[in-house]
């Protein structure tokens, strides 16, 4: 008998517009000490499956028309709240994607973990403290005694996730449900957390139910895998086999979809489009009553590079390394020091008003496809906005024609211009953002993580679109991303940033194949192999 047996489980939700079938009928089993991955794109029902196991859904809005979930032979569906309390957090624990919102901001680390020990084990006082310290050592949160009194906001993302894991392990569960445990973390931290989970699994012999959209994690980490799409499990098998020989068309498509390959050969270009020299963005740290400036936060420090038309500069680094800040300061959306030469103009000398005529040449596409489109404007109004500023002589018909053209360019039906952003999926919204930037026919586009909020298959489509547009219009891109695969697929040159400083800068092939610094090597190992390397070089 398996530890956990899920049979033909269906989870539906009652909504105003009828019943939504989130999970239609999934079956899987989980044995002691094994790792099972539920993999799928957003909306495939993988998280709902896991929450059904924990019986943590908003009942009775959610309900199970059929199926069973058996944990060591006990039926969990319909089990009373009393039974579930004995199992949740005790026998089956869960860790979530966003560690900041999963921890109570008003409690110290010691109290967060101590509470669980008190509820389930009745431990208090010194016995509890001892166990808390033991757990924190187990999850590798260095400097434990000092951090016992720390509040969640005083910890970094990786440290918070370690605390979450310590909480989940407090009662030595048989099953750990990990819902996208590393999605909110940097690649380097992700590798550390995954290694920690694997070590803990071996030491404690627990089973892990891993929910993720990231195929690399599944490949490296899972014993068996269930591929989910639209509420159904379409393929189940040993991870190695599924990756080597996918049977179901959806799995094949998913595996083939990851952005791959390298940037196409750029056209020969002699002149330089944009040249940045000694760029600095410093935020003052002030102290005392008179707000004396005592020091600076060096968000970007002494960054220099040049970019030719038709070329892409990839900017990579961990979060907080100043990637986005560079993009914004080149567009003069935040103030900076240093020379920014664009064509024949020195941008750094220009005020916001003087920048206006040049704005049509320099455009930006943001990361979050939901936040970057005004929800109250139709798609047409969003796309035409730049034209209203820069080409005021256009008649209404001409403007409409330009909007249609831009939408077609990014692969959208021009009829969509009468609709509103909330009717579109993430990938379509990102296309609208690109159309808004392109309608002005710019020469330089800053792409600020344009693919990181999207599903893998959609990522690949956007990458293809960006490549096509670059070839067609000889665009120069500055591609900011933490996802090294996408960067490899697009960039000709790569700039590696750490704490606002350039650690490495060179042609893409050279950086990827033969990284020179430990930091770059650590990034590469974490991104492509999910291995922890050169720990000293990265943040912990």
């Amino acid at each position: 008998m398996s530890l956990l047996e899920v049979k033909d489980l269906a989870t539906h939700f009652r909504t105003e517009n009828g019943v939504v079938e989130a999970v239609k009928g999934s079956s899987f089993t989980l044995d002691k000490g094994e790792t099972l991955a539920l993999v799928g794109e957003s909306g495939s029902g993988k998280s709902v499956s896991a929450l059904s196991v924990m019986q943590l859904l908003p009942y009775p809005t959610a309900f199970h028309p059929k199926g069973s979930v058996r944990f060591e032979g006990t039926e969990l569906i319909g089990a009373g709240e009393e039974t579930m309390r004995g199992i949740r957090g005790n026998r089956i624990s869960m860790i979530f994607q966003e560690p900041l919102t999963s921890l109570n901001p008003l409690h110290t680390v010691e109290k967060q973990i101590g509470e669980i020990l008190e509820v389930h084990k009745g431990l208090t006082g010194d016995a509890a403290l001892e166990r808390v310290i033991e757990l924190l050592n187990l999850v590798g949160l260095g400097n434990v005694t000092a951090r016992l009194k720390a509040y969640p906001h005083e910890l970094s993302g990786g440290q918070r996730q370690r605390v979450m894991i310590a909480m989940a392990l407090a009662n030595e569960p048989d099953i750990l449900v990990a819902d996208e445990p590393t999605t909110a973390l940097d690649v380097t931290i992700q590798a550390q957390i995954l290694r920690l989970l694997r070590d803990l699994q071996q030491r404690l012999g627990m089973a892990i139910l891993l929910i993720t959209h990231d195929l690399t994690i599944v490949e490296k980490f899972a014993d068996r895998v269930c591929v989910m799409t639209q509420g159904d499990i379409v393929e189940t098998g040993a991870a190695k086999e599924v990756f080597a020989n996918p049977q179901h068309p959806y799995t094949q498509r998913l595996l083939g979809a990851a952005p791959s390959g390298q940037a196409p050969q750029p056209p020969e270009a002699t002149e330089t489009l944009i040249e940045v020299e000694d760029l600095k963005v410093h935020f003052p740290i002030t102290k005392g009553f008179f707000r004396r400036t005592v020091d600076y936060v060096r968000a970007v420090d002494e960054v220099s590079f040049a970019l030719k038309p038709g070329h892409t500069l990839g900017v990579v680094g961990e979060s907080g390394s100043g990637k986005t800040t560079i993009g914004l300061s080149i567009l003069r959306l935040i103030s900076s020091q240093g020379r920014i030469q664009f064509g024949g103009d020195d941008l750094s000398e220009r005020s916001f008003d003087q920048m206006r005529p040049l704005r049509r040449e320099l455009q930006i596409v943001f990361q979050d496809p939901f936040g970057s489109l005004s929800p109250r404007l139709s798609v047409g109004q969003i796309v035409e906005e730049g034209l209203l500023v820069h080409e005021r002589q256009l008649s209404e018909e001409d403007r409409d024609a330009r909007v249609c053209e831009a939408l077609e360019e990014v692969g959208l039906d021009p009829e969509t211009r009468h609709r509103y952003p909330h009717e579109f999926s993430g990938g379509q919204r990102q296309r609208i953002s690109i159309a808004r930037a392109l309608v002005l026919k710019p020469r330089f586009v800053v792409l600020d993580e344009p693919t990181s909020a999207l599903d893998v298959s959609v990522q690949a489509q956007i990458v293809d679109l960006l490549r096509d547009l670059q070839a067609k219009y000889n665009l120069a891109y500055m591609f900011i991303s933490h996802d090294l695969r996408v960067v490899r697929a697009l960039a000709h040159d790569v700039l590696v940033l750490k704490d606002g400083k350039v650690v490495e800068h060179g042609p893409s092939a050279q950086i990827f194949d033969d990284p020179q610094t430990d930091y770059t090597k650590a990034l590469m190992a974490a991104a492509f192999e999910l291995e922890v390397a050169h720990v000293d070089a990265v943040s912990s």
Partner: protein
Amino acid sequence: MSAPRNDKIMFWRVTPLNARRWSNFKANRRGYWSLWIFGILFGLSLFAEFIANDRPIILEYNGSIYMPVFKDYPETEFGGFFETPADYRDPYVKELITESGGWMVWPLFPYAADTINREIPVPAPAPPSLDNPLGTDDQARDVAARVIYGFRISVLFGLALTFFATIIGVWAGAVQGYFGGRTDLYMQRFVEVWSGLPELFLLIILSSIVTPNFWWLLGIMVLFRWVALVDVVRAEFLRARNFDYVRAARALGLKDRNIMFKHVLPNAMVATITFLPFILNGSIATLTSLDFLGFGLPPGSASLGELLKQGKNNLQAPWLGISAFLTIAIMLSLLIFIGEAVRDAFDPRKTFGNGGKG
């Protein structure tokens, strides 16, 4: 989904969002019916001159048609003695007109707000009778007529005050929130000091210097009322100015003014519109209380507050207090019900309730 949705009602473009809001509004039955009842009452009161007036709407004299509702005619016009405007309630004038073979069409209540009924059988205030369905006040004026005119001026005052206060408040909040920094700091301190000024004392001092009329009161109240919305709008702007679409608009080169109007304001309007019915209520209640205290509209004007005061001074004539109380209570309740429905209509959890998956 496929058809372009660009329906227009007049110049107002009906977006799917607004259509959804309208259906949310209608789903609140109480608010929906309140809107109808209030709309009809307010619409009727706008034509108060045709409902309660001391002169006929239309009359015929010697074969020609006169419309006293719109124009003053001297009594000599109808063969009388005086050059002064005709008093149509005077039996002598009535006789002149009927003797010529003419006729008069009177409004439902043949009294204006300031008409003194000299024919009441008992000393004023007179109880309800066929002539004065809600009785008369202590100056023998018809209560029904005064309620109709008082309702109109209360609502108009409330609307005007809300309108001007909203414009100033939204503007101030928008500037503070959008620019932030020092602008925000100094303006916010100013708003705090300003809202600490005692409004009532200023009005009392003012009323000893000038005779306050409708516009004076409105002006003074606007000076103090605009701060109500500043905090809400400021918070919305502070939040929205860091949104990616605002950044994108800046990257496109839009001017600050355009960004504020086109991108940020529509988001801030949800909070503002939700507040409006309640601000309107507050404005009406303030005018009523000023009138009650005697610092409001000039003496003699029809006002609900003044009627309340008369009710307090004449407890032996309960029709005064009851009429005023019912009018104010019904008006404010209707507005609150409408306000609740508006809040429902703009509630994002209801508007986007089933669109969570985008």
